[in-house]
C-alpha cells in the first residue's frame, strides 16, 4: 500500500521533470539569430582602460573602438581614424578622424573624445598607461584632426594603439567616471558607451553579458546577429556539453583532448589556428648557484651558454606537439610566431633534436655526468602546461640532467619567479603589439625599472648589443633597416640561447555547424564577423 504512494510520488516528480524538460527542449529547438557563446573567463570589467588583459580587451573590442583596429589577418586598418601619417621627421602621428560617428547613447564623436580618452587611458589609475609611454603630447588640430606627438620617432605607434578604445567625454563626465577605478569600481565598470558595432544591453558579472547591434554604426554590417549573449563557463567539460547540446553556439577554447572526438560530429565544427603566444623555457642567467640542486650547490651551470644549448638540443619539440598538443601546435625558434610583424625569416630554424650533441655540449661545459636542478612550471596558465613540463623533464633526463619538477597554480607561480625561486622556468609570451620589438623590450632587455625595460626578464639576461639595438628598433622608420636590426637581435638571442623557445600555442575554437566566424591569432572573438546560417 505504501509502495503505491511512493510510486505515485515518483511518477509525479518524474512527469513534472519531463514536462519541464520537454517544454524547454521545444523552446531551444527554434533558433533565432540570438547568438550565445561561452568563454572560460568573464571579462572582469566593462571599462576599457581599467584592465589590460585579453578577456577584457577582446570582449570590449565589440563594444568600443580605437582610432585603428586589426583586420581578419591582423593588419592595421582604419576605424575611428580614416587615415594617418607621420608628422615631420617622426615627431609624431597625425590622425584624421571619421566624421558622422555616434556613440551608443547618440552623442557624436570628435577630437575632444580622443583627447579625453588619451588622458583617461594614460593616467596612473589606468592599466593601459604603458601604451602611451612614447607619447609626449596629444593636440587637437581641428574637431576631426588629432596630432599625437612622440618623444622619439615611433614607426609602430598606430599598430600599438589598436586596443586603445575611445570613450565619450560627455558620457564619462556625466556619469562621474573620468578615470577608471579598478579597486572600487565606478559607473564604467558595469556600463559601456562606445562606438562599436554592438552595444551593451545587460551586464551581470560572472553570469551573462548581453549585446545588441548598434543601429547607427558607421561600418558595413557583415553579421546577421540580433542579440548576443556571453556566458562564462569555467569547467571545460560543461562548456563542451553546452556546445554539443546546442545551448551555446560557440566555445573558446575546446579542450585539446576532445578535438579528435568532435571532428567526427556533424553538428559542430572545430576551428584551429595558431595563437600569438610562444611557449619557452627561461634560465637564471645571473644566479651564482642553483637553488634546487642535490649536488651542484656552488655553481650555476645555466650561466654557461653551452648548457643552455644542450637543453635546446635535448628537447624533442615535434614529439611534444604530437603527443601533448595532438598535432595542433607549431614549433618555433624565436620569441615571436611567424604571424607577427618583424618575425625573422633568417632565423626560423630551431636547434635540431640531437641528444648526442646535447651530451657532448654538457661534457664540454664540465658536466659529463649531468646535474640536478629545479624546474618551475605553472599548471593552469597555458594549454597543458604541466604535461609539457613533464615531457621536458623526461627528455632532459635522457641527456643526464635531472629536473625536479614543481608545478603550481599561476597565482603562486609569478611570485615564485619574481623571488628568483627557480633554476629553470616555463613562460608563455604573447606580444601585445604584435611586433617582434615587444618581447625584446620585455624579455631580452636588461631589466631597468626606471626605463620600464625587461620587466619580465626574470633571469636577468643581459647583452649590451641587444640593449643598444632596442631603442634603434623602436625608432627606425625604414622597414628594411628595422628588420635587419631585429634579425641581428634574434640571432644574438639564439646564439646566447637566452631562452629556449618551444612552440606556438594553438587556438582551438568550437562552433555549431551553422555558424561562420573568423578566428584571429590574438584569440579575440570579433562578433561582427559572425554569420548564423
Amino acid at each position, binding site marked *: 500500500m*505504501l*509502495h503505491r*504512494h*511512493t510510486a505515485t*510520488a*515518483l511518477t509525479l*516528480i518524474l512527469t513534472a521533470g*519531463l514536462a*519541464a*524538460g520537454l*517544454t*524547454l*527542449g521545444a*523552446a531551444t529547438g527554434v533558433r533565432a539569430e540570438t547568438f550565445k557563446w561561452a568563454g572560460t573567463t*568573464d571579462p*572582469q570589467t566593462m571599462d576599457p582602460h*581599467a*584592465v*589590460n*588583459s585579453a578577456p577584457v580587451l577582446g570582449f570590449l573590442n565589440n563594444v568600443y573602438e580605437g582610432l585603428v583596429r586589426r583586420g581578419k589577418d591582423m593588419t592595421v586598418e582604419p576605424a575611428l581614424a580614416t587615415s594617418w601619417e607621420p608628422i615631420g621627421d617622426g615627431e609624431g602621428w597625425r590622425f584624421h578622424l571619421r566624421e558622422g560617428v555616434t556613440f551608443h547613447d547618440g552623442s557624436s564623436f570628435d577630437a575632444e573624445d580622443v583627447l579625453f580618452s588619451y588622458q583617461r587611458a594614460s593616467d596612473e589609475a589606468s*592599466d*593601459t598607461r*604603458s*601604451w602611451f609611454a612614447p607619447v609626449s603630447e596629444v593636440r587637437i588640430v581641428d574637431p576631426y584632426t588629432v596630432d599625437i606627438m612622440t618623444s622619439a620617432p615611433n614607426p609602430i605607434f598606430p599598430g600599438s594603439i589598436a586596443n586603445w578604445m575611445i570613450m565619450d567625454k560627455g558620457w564619462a563626465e556625466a556619469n562621474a567616471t573620468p578615470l577608471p*577605478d*579598478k*579597486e572600487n*569600481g565606478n559607473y564604467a*565598470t558595469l556600463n559601456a558607451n562606445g562606438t562599436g558595432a554592438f552595444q551593451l544591453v545587460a551586464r551581470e*558579472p*560572472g*553570469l551573462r553579458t548581453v549585446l545588441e547591434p548598434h543601429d547607427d554604426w558607421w561600418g558595413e554590417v557583415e553579421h546577421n546577429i540580433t542579440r548576443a549573449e556571453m*556566458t*562564462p*563557463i*569555467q*569547467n571545460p*567539460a*560543461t*562548456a563542451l*556539453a*553546452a556546445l*554539443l*547540446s*546546442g*545551448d551555446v553556439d560557440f566555445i573558446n577554447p575546446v579542450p585539446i583532448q576532445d578535438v579528435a572526438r568532435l571532428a567526427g560530429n556533424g553538428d559542430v565544427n572545430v576551428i584551429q589556428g595558431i595563437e600569438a603566444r610562444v611557449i619557452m623555457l627561461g634560465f637564471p642567467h645571473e644566479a651564482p648557484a642553483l637553488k634546487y640542486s642535490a649536488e651542484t650547490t656552488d655553481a650555476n651551470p645555466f650561466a654557461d651558454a653551452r648548457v643552455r644549448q644542450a637543453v635546446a638540443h635535448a628537447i624533442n619539440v615535434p614529439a611534444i606537439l604530437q603527443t601533448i598538443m595532438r598535432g595542433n601546435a607549431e614549433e618555433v625558434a624565436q620569441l615571436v610566431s611567424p604571424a607577427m610583424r618583424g618575425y625573422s625569416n633568417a632565423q626560423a630554424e630551431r636547434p635540431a633534436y640531437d641528444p648526442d650533441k646535447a651530451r657532448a655540449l654538457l661534457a664540454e661545459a664540465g658536466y659529463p655526468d649531468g646535474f640536478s636542478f629545479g624546474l618551475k612550471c605553472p599548471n593552469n596558465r597555458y594549454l597543458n602546461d604541466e604535461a609539457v613540463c613533464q615531457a621536458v623533464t623526461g627528455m632532459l633526463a635522457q641527456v643526464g640532467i635531472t629536473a625536479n619538477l614543481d608545478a603550481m*597554480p*599561476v*597565482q*603562486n607561480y*609569478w*611570485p615564485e619567479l*619574481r623571488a628568483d625561486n627557480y633554476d629553470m622556468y616555463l613562460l608563455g609570451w*604573447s606580444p*601585445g603589439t604584435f611586433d617582434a620589438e615587444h618581447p625584446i623590450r*620585455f624579455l631580452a632587455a636588461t631589466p631597468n*625599472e626606471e626605463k*620600464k625595460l625587461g*620587466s*619580465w626578464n626574470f633571469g636577468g639576461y643581459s647583452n649590451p648589443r641587444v640593449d643598444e639595438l632596442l631603442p634603434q628598433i623602436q625608432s627606425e622608420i625604414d622597414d628594411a633597416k628595422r628588420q635587419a636590426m631585429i634579425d641581428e637581435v634574434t640571432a644574438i638571442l639564439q646564439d646566447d640561447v637566452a631562452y629556449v623557445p618551444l612552440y606556438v600555442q594553438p587556438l582551438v575554437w568550437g562552433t555549431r555547424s551553422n555558424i561562420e566566424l573568423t578566428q584571429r591569432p590574438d584569440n579575440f572573438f570579433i562578433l561582427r564577423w559572425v554569420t548564423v546560417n
Partner: protein
Amino acid sequence: MLAFIIRRVAQSALVLLIVGLVAFSMFRFVGDPIDNMLGQERTQADIERLRVQLGLDQPFPVQYYKFLEGAVQGNFGVSYRQGRPVAEILLERAPATLELAAVSGLLAIVLGIALGVFTAIRRNGVMANVIMSASLIGVSLPTFLIGILLIYLFSVELGWLPSFGRGETVRVGDWWTTGFLTPSGRAALILPSITLGLYQMTLIMRLVRSEMLEVLRQDYIRFARARGLRDRVVNFRHALKNTMVPVITVIGLQLGAIIAFAIITETVFQWPGVGLLFINAVQFVDIPVMAAYLMLISVMFVGINLIVDLLYFLIDPRLRVDRAGGH
C-alpha cells in the same frame, strides 16, 4: 537554561573567530592577487603600489583585524576581481544557491524517506533490492561525475534539459531572483538538484531503512499487528513516527552540507550561486570574497549546530534534569 545558551553562543563566536584566523593565514598560500589585477605591461613599481593600496604588505593578523573591523559593521570590502562590494555580490548570488539547496533538500527528504520506508517494508522484494543496489551509486560516485553523466545523458544525448546555467530568472522583491517562475528556470533546476541531492537522498534512505527495520522488530509493532491493525496504520502511525527522531537530526545537519557542497555541483553546471563565486574567487585570489564566503559558511554551520543543541535541550528532558541536578 540561560547560562547554557550564553555559554553556547560564546563558544560559537570563538569558533567563528578561529575559522577566520585560519582562513586568513591560509590566504597567502592561495597565491598573489596582484598579477591577476595588473596586465602584462606592469612594472615592479605598479606591483608595490597596488600591494600597499590593498594592504597586502601588512602581516596577516593586521589584515585579519581589519577584515573583522569591517565585518562587524557589515562591510566585507570590495572584490578584487569585480571592483564591487562583496556584500552586494554575495546577496546577488545567494538566491541561486538557496533555491538549488531547497529543491535538492526537499528532493532528498521526500524521496529518501519514501524509498527508505519502501525498502524497509519490502526488504525481500525484488524492487527494494534493486533500489538498495542502485543507492550504492549515489553513495559512492563523486558528485561531479554524476553531474557530467546527467548532462551527457539529458542534455547532449536526449536534448531534454539545459546543460548549464539557471535559465531565465524573475526578480522578486528588492534583491531576490527566482528561477521557479519560468519554464527554463524550472528546467534548469532539475539536473543540478538531482546531482546535489542524490548523496543526501541515499543517506536518508539508508538511515530510514535501518531505523525502520529496527523499529519493526519491536514488540509494540508485533502487538499492533496482533491487534489486527491495518498495515498502513502500523507502518506509518507507529513505526515511521518512531524512526523519525534520529532522521530529523541528520537532516538538520545535512542542510548545511547541501549548501556547502553546492560548490562542486555549481561548478559542473555553471550554476551562478555563491559556490561558483567562491571557486572563481580562489582562482583569482579574490581575498575579500573568499573571506566573506568562508565566514558566511561557518556562521551557517555554527548557527545550525547551535539551534540543534538548543533543540536537544528542549526536546530531551533528561538533559535539563541532569544540568539542574549537577549545579
